[in-house]
Every structure is written in structure tokens, then in C-alpha cells.
């Protein structure tokens, strides 16, 4: 069994050279123009927050909200770690964009046959044993890739040994854990990271969906019971009516 892959981004090491952006565009066949925000043609970007450079991309959640939201199962958490998108299934409902806690997926709003675009952690490359294009291109080692356990261990080691780091690995607990981790010497909320719950989001809908059999069974029996009472009542009323009518008729005849 293959181990789950992960990426660690060390914000203290990023110099903002944007090699990752270029490599990503090259690997995904996207036009080579610099962009400041994630878009349908920029699946990873370097955002500047003060003097810090923060890379943004799909967090590849362990239990992704987008994959649970997608009604046709176009988005999937692979056993390798990346969350992939099968464009041949997509119907363009855009619920994944609503659902993503990190606001990552982008839509091709200008196209007549628009698809969802997001980082897939270079799934095709990873299957072949290569590391993601962005990681390979990083000249300072700000982004490193490896198995999720190794990467998490490395992140912990850095955070524990060096006091400059904030004592938190972003992605280790967020929405039940992700496959992309960030460590930083500046508090994450100052770098545009959203504070999200530690519970995986799909749990919220799973609870609601779990009620379906109960609703169908209990609701169905209650409704059927009510119908039985209703029609029984009608029958009784009809019978009573018939009875009173016959007694009325016989009393007429007796007269």
C-alpha cells in the first residue's frame, strides 16, 4: 500500500520567486502570465502579506467538503492524498466552490463549457513517483513533499526546535487535517489563513443524511397510520349513515 503524500510549506523560507507558480502553469498547460490571486488559470499563487510570502493552493483535506458535496462524485480524495477532479462527470453546479472551507476551487466563468479548476497536487506526477511540480521547482526548500507522516514529523521537528515558529502547524487539525501543511513565524490569522473548525465538514451533512432512513421509515409509518385512521373514520361514518337511513326508512314504512 502506498503512503499518503503531503506538502509542507515553510513560510519563513519562501523568498517569493514564484518559481512554483510558473512550474504549476507549465505542468497544467496554463498560460504563463503572473497572477496575484487563485484563478482558473492559476492553481497556486504567492500572496504577499507584509514582508511574508504565502503560497495558496488546494489543501487536499483528509475528508474534503468538496468531495462530499459533489453530487456526481467528480471530486475524489485519492488514496495517494491528492483530491482529484474528473471533469467528464461535472455538471457545473458549483456546490464544491460553496462548500470549500478554504475557498480554493475556481470556475471558468468566461467559458461556454465551464469547468472547475483547482490544484490536484500533481496527481498524475505523483502516481509516477514524481513530486509535485511546484515542490520540484522550489529553489529554497520552502515547499517540500513526502509521505504525510514524514512531512508532519518534519514540521513538528522544526516548530519544536526553533523558537521563531508559531506553535501551530496549519493543516494538522484544520477540518480534520489536510495534506498540505504550513508553518510560519507570524501568526496565521495575520497571513490571511481562515480559522476553521477542527471537525471535518462532511460530518455535518452526514448527520443530516443519516436521518433519511429514519424519516422514511418513521414518517412513512406515521403517515400510513394516519391514513388508516382517516379512512376507518370515513367507513364508520358511512356505515352509521347507512344504518340510520335504513332505520329511518323502516320507520317510514311502519307509518
Amino acid at each position, binding site marked *: 500500500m502506498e503512503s499518503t503524500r503531503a506538502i509542507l510549506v515553510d513560510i519563513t523560507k519562501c523568498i517569493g520567486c514564484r518559481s512554483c507558480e510558473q512550474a504549476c502553469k507549465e505542468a497544467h498547460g496554463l498560460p504563463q502570465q503572473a497572477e496575484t490571486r487563485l484563478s482558473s488559470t492559476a492553481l497556486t499563487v504567492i500572496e504577499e502579506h507584509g514582508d511574508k510570502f504565502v503560497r495558496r493552493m488546494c489543501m487536499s483535506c483528509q475528508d474534503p467538503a468538496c468531495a462530499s458535496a459533489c453530487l456526481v*462524485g467528480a471530486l475524489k480524495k485519492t488514496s495517494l492524498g491528492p483530491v482529484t477532479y474528473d471533469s467528464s462527470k*461535472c455538471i457545473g453546479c*458549483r456546490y464544491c466552490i460553496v462548500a470549500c472551507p478554504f475557498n480554493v476551487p475556481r470556475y471558468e466563468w468566461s467559458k461556454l463549457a465551464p469547468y472547475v479548476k483547482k490544484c490536484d497536487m500533481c496527481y498524475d506526477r505523483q502516481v509516477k513517483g514524481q513530486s509535485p511540480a511546484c515542490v520540484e521547482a522550489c529553489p529554497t526548500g520552502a515547499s517540500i513533499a513526502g509521505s504525510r507522516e514524514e512531512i508532519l514529523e518534519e514540521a513538528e521537528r522544526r516548530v519544536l526546535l526553533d523558537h521563531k515558529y508559531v506553535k501551530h502547524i496549519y493543516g494538522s487539525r484544520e477540518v480534520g487535517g489536510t495534506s498540505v501543511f504550513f508553518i510560519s513565524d507570524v501568526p496565521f490569522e495575520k497571513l490571511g489563513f481562515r480559522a476553521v473548525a477542527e471537525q471535518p465538514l462532511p460530518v455535518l451533512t452526514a448527520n443530516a443524511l443519516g436521518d*433519511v432512513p429514519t424519516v422514511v421509515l418513521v414518517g412513512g409509518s406515521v*403517515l400510513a397510520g394516519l391514513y388508516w385512521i382517516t379512512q376507518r*373514520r370515513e367507513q364508520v361514518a*358511512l356505515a352509521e349513515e347507512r344504518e340510520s337511513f335504513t332505520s329511518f326508512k323502516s320507520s317510514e314504512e311502519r307509518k
Partner: protein
Amino acid sequence: MATNNSIHFPDPPTHGFGRPPLITRPAPGPDTNPGSWIQQITLWRVIVGIIFAAGLYAAYARFALGFERSTHLVDAQPWGLWVGLGTLCGVGLSAGGFAIAAAVYLLGFERYRPVLRTAVLVSFLGYSSVIVGMMYELGLPWRIWHPIVMWNRHSILFEVSWCVMLYSTVLALEFSPALVEKIPFATLRDFYLKWHHELLIGLVLAGTLLSSLHQSFLGGLYLLAQGKLDPLWYSPYLPTMFYLSAVPAGLAVTIIALYLSSRSLNVRIDLNILSDVSQVIAPLLAIYGLFRGVDLLSRGGSMYLWTWREETLSFWLEIALFVIAPVVLLSRPAVRSNPKYLYWTCCLIVMGFVANRLDVSITGLQASSGFYYIPKWTEFALSLATVTAAVIAFRYAVVYLDVLPRNSSAQRWIVRSGPARA
């Protein structure tokens, strides 16, 4: 059971075929010239023409130019008016059909039977317009059939899509006798109607369950927006709230449809029925308001209730329109017994309902997305054209089919009061 002094006899096996037409039109006078097309142009026809022309351009913009040129949707606001109004309100406001069908067939509230067909027709046209809306809302509408073969049972939207598909079918079957009874071949007609009668309870039961599921799951869609949706609207009980609000709103729409039919179509409707239906709405709205209030306060939402921001103002507008004003108005017998007042009260309910759905889908997400979404005019135009088409379909259906209740409905009850019978 002893007090049961009114009895309903099952409908005689009559059908619409051969019954006198419901609508009586004044015969054309000697000085009217039916051939002149100028005289056919009325203000309403001009308005409808403008709506359709705008809708046609909007459809062109959507399909030939794309989302970017036809909407103001962006990644921060991927669902706009077409979802908030078209889908959430379209489905919610069509809840009258299942509510009245369940009341009549399962709970035995025979006094609502006269409005049953109207309610089912309104619902059917509502769901039809939702499905039409999907054709321009979806990015790849030609793949609308994908959920039938590609399943993800962890997805709330998957459940919603299946429930909507199945329930639209149920509504079509529930309404089908109105069409079938117009078939001039007696054997075929009676065969269909006999089988329909046999299966009807099953349909109504399935329809009630399907409706209960997807009405609430439309709210369930936003469970994933935890941390994005404003605390005034986000709740783990969103599904319950969507359900509790849809039923009274659907009933209000039924009243509006009946009232407008009686106003514009020269039909006589027993308006007491409207008053009957309205008596159910007020308690339902009160229950919703109470549930919503308790839920909000128990989650510590009181701190958001009195701040000066757009979300709070929208919240109070919605509560005032949907809960406070209708409950106060409907508690007054003068409003309940006056069809016109009742109609306007129902309009308030519908406006409040629309406000609620737009708050959940648009206003409540603004703060977290940082994007202030105002729909483009083409979004309004396409939605308006879809609704207008449904209204016109309703008009033709009630003119040519036996849909609206007749005044003679009172004759179906025979009051047993002892010797008076002789």
C-alpha cells in the same frame, strides 16, 4: 366520534369530460371586432411581451456569451439569484401541493379538497420552472442527467436532485387526471382513472416523504457553509427551518393563485376555502418563528440581533415580513374573512420567504466572502421570464381544465340533523 355530523360521500365517478365549461366569457358584442389585432394588445400583454423579450436576450447572453457576460457571479459568490430565487424559492414556494394533498388524503381534512388540484398544479408548474431554471443555472446543463447514473450518496445535493426528480414525477401523476378526463374515449379514460384512484394514496404518501426530505435538504445544503454563513442564519437545524418555513409559504402561494384566478378569470370561487387555508398558516408561521428564535438564542445569537449592519437589518426585515406581520394580521377575523386582505397578507408571507432564502444564499455569505453581489439585469430577466411562463401556463390550465374549485362544492357535504332530513 359522536359529534361527527357532517359526512363526506366519496366523489361520484364523474369526470371533467362533458361538464359545462368553468369559465363563462361574455359574448362578443356587436361593436367589438374580434379580428382586429390592435384590440388584442392590452397593458398586461405588453408587459409580458417585454418580459419575454428581455428573457430571450438573457438566454442568448447566458448560452452564447457565458456566465461572465450574463451574470455577476464570481468565485466568491458562485451561487446567485438563479439558485437563491430560482431553486430555493421555486421549490419552497411549491410546497403547497404536498401539504394540501397530505391534509386531504392522509389526514382527512376534506374541507380542503376543493383547492387540491389548484395546489398540485401550482406545485407542478413551480417544479417545472425550477427544472427549466436548472438549464441555465448549471454550467453544463446538457449533463443534467448525470446524477441518475453517477451517484454520490454522501452529497446532500445528490439527495435533493433525486427527490426533485421523483417528486416532479409524482406531481405530474397526481395532476394527470385533469388531463386524462378530457380524453373523449370513455374506456381508456375510465381505465386510467380507475388505476389512478387505486394508486393515488401511494403517490400522496411518497410525495409527502419526498417533499419533506428535499424541502429540508435545501437548507441542509448550507450546513457545509459553517463559518461562512452569518450566525443569524447558520444553524445545525437549517434543514428543519427550511421545512417549517416552506409549508406555510406554499399554502400562501396557493391562496394567491386562487385569489388571482377569481379576480381575473371571471370564475366564482368559494372564498371561504381561502379563509380555511389561512387559518392553518398563522400557527405554522408562529411555530417557525418560535423555533427560529429559540435556536438563535440558544446558540448565543442574541449579540447579533441589535448591531447596525446589513445582515441584521435583512434579518429583521425577513422576520417582520414572514412571521410578525402575517401572524398579527391573520389573528384578526377581519383579515381572514376578507379575500383581498388575505391576499395581501399572503403576498407579505411570500416576500418574507423570498427574503429568507436570499439572506441564506446571498446576504448571509457577503461578510465572509468579501464580495458584494448584486445580480445583473439578465439574471433578473431570465428568472422573471421563467416565472411568467409558469403563470401563463397556469392561466391556460385553469381555463381549459377543471382545476379551480366550484361554488357547488358545498353540496358535497350532507348535514345530518335528525328529523330535518325528511
